């Protein structure tokens, strides 16, 4: 069930990407946003695949939200789950009353990262080391396209700062994974079959 739902999301994600690509071409072939299209197609530069990703295991997760606390504390300097880049709480209510299989949401570091493709300012870049897709805050101009583009709602847009945040794998040492007391979050090799793993 869970994984079927995710596959569906992936399919939608793919369709959306194709549409963006076609859309750009339809405007007359002028390449305004070089990243706004699938890799290789129509002459857009390819995005290298991420090497690693943070994955969540619903069965092991104890629902403590230390990951949200760690992410916000270490990355924003204060505990604030609403500003994390990993979410347990968003779907906590769905499962707490029924089966306790918490759905933790992490960024998939998508192959064709729609967040990255959607940013006209090219503020979303690829980390040299982990190849994680990250927001360069110096470039981010607060359009919020990335947030709307992410099929998994994993971009956290801060209204007050008018800047976006997304998971950047903490430069290769994910704080959320370090604080998870249940190995429910794991830092693993990136794999396009994300949803079929486990």
């Amino acid at each position, binding site marked *: 069930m869970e994984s079927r739902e995710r596959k569906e999301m992936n399919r939608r994600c793919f369709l959306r990407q194709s549409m963006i690509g076609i859309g750009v071409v339809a405007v007359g072939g002028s390449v305004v946003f070089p990243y706004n299209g699938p890799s290789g197609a129509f002459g857009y530069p390819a995005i290298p695949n991420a090497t690693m990703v943070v994955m969540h295991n619903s*069965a*092991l*997760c*104890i*629902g*403590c*939200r*230390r990951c949200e*606390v*760690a992410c*916000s*504390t*270490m990355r*924003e*300097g*204060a*505990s*604030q*789950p*609403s*500003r994390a880049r990993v979410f347990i*709480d*968003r*779907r*906590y*209510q*769905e499962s*707490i*009353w*029924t*089966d*306790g*299989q918490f759905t933790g949401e992490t960024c998939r570091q998508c192959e064709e990262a729609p967040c990255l493709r959607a940013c006209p300012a090219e503020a979303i870049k690829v980390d040299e080391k982990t190849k994680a897709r990250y927001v360069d805050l110096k470039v981010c101009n607060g359009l919020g396209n990335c947030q709307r583009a992410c099929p998994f709602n994993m971009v956290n847009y801060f209204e007050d700062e008018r800047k976006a945040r997304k998971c950047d794998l903490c430069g290769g040492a994910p704080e959320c*994974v*370090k*604080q*998870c*007391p*249940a*190995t429910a979050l794991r830092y693993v090799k990136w794999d396009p079959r994300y949803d079929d793993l486990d």
Partner: protein
Amino acid sequence: MRELNGWAGKILRINLTNNKIEKVDTERYIPKYIGGLGIGLKIMWDEVSGDVKPLDPENKLILMAGPLTGTLSPSSGRLTAVTKSPHTWPVEHTTRGNMGGHIGAEIRFAGYDGIIVEGKAPKPVYVAIHDDKVAIRDAIHLWGLDTYDAQRQMIKEMRDSRAKAMVIGVAGEKLVRTAVIIHDLKSALGQGGFGAVMGSKNLKGIVVRGTGRVKMACSPKELLDLVEYTKSLIAAPLHGIIPPPVGSAASGYRARDNLQWVGGPKKISIGRVDPKDMNRMSLRPHEADRRFAGKMAAYHVKNIGCFSCPVACKSYMTVPAMNRFGIPQSGEFVCLSATWYSPPASTHEATFAAKQLIDTLGLNPWDLVMWVFLLRWMHETGRITEKEAGIPFSDEKKGGERFITTLCNKIARREGLGDIMAEGLPRGAMKMGVLDDVLRGEAAGRVMLCSHGMWDHYDPRSYSQVLGLTWVMDNRDPNRHEYPGMVLFSGAKIEDIKQVAKALYGSENAIDPIGKITPYHPSKGRFAISIDHHGVIKDSLPTCDWVFPVVLSPNPERKYMGDMSIESKLFSAVTGVKWSEQELDKAAERCWNLHRAVTIRDWKTANLRESHDWLPEVYYTGLTPTTPVSTVVSATEGGLDRKDFETAKTDYYKQRGWDEKTGAPTRKKLEELDLKDVADKLAAMKLLPA
């Protein structure tokens, strides 16, 4: 109000009589009263007189988080409550409660250190808090709902699924004296009757959504290092830290290769967890496994934790058969709530049904467990018939599902005999004319009624004068687990424990093995005082009693020594108030003296020694071996010695700088603790010893 480190900076005051909503500046109380319990007691002292009755509109329900709630500090996501209690007996005095879950943290993210509820709404309402927007909403449609449905409905009405709620069930609405407030599946403000106080205000519940932050003074890295260090020392719940074969079989930590979780959609193999593996610490086998080895373990879906807790003491269970009784099939289990109804012939379904019933109706198992024993005894001895009671005793032989469902519903709804039982055990037993039998330990084979009208959770006959002292000095079941944690759950050897006790309390005599009481020694007084102070700290920062203070560690190289200074380090790092262990201890002592002052005012006598600091008769006699929770109590040769226990009390008062004749704090002590105003007020009431 400026943004502080640690503290949110404001406390929400909600008056249900005139719908006034105010924000109180937390800086009035800090750092002097720490947070949580400390501030709660101070507000109680300042704002509620000794004459106020628990269910009067003038009583206040004070819900306080602390400076660590919502941070990375381990097991800190808790909420403390203070109110005049309808549950305590013989006097309805001020008491405290503490619960986990997520709502304490949510209150802090909404920007508050706590909530003071006062007055009484003319009709049922609930309070909705979304950051700085606070509304008092109609709750007619929620009145009568069980605690699960009510929470879900309130969260739905918030239009934000990330909101957290706490509510009363039918029991709270009907002012059952022992009713609890429930949050999520089972987090409860339990002992004390907080649910009845909420019900008396016509308040069904509080729903909160917070998007803000909790700031800290230190750098994230500094906090992280401290947290990692703490995690390396903290134990599994109940300080059950040392796995067999080194740890005894009683250890709460039963590491083994074949540990599995089998109750979920997929079977999960956990196996043996290395105590040093911080990423698997919450997977250690503990509560659930310890209590439910056998049939119930088949329903264990997973361990589950409160906000920011890496230990996860609760067992999440799904029992599909519950649908048969119209009871929700999923729930969380821990400790007594799990096993309070488990007579020999009962099915495990009845045990789980009993657990779900108390959580959905908002009842208190610590009181109900006594009723089950008392009723059975009354029935067996012909004092009551099945027909009179309206309770199907004979069903117990068939599994007990009908028996327990009837009993719980009768009490929660105050129907028939349930109306008397809803008064709590001591008051109910008095009405039924059996209180003397209870106090002498003749009813039900084992009395189980300790001071303040509560079930004897850790019997002083098993845990020596130390727990005897903490029982009588507190205003409720003290519920502090250092002592049983060390001798019962840790699995450590008594020689090692004694060395730790010597280092901490000055002598090996501070601690006795279970049920082998040695004569009083001043180190026992020191131990009791340490328990009281660390108790205040636990409820004020807060941290969790099942983990803190870190008395022992699983670490043989440290000779199993824990680290009692961790709380002060976490407090200093987060708040920036640089307090040493001693300074935090001093603040805890201040709060505990204030607690005593509040008690004196509630009792209207300074002579607590003869009145409040009292143990029922039965504790001076031997223990009968029949007991419902065999791990909590073990048989001992004789009870406490009366003279010896009086010596203990005298020495405890002396060590505290209290008047030895009455057990009341002296002016000198109060002034030393910067509580001159308290001394003056007591003197004006003629409640200060000469």
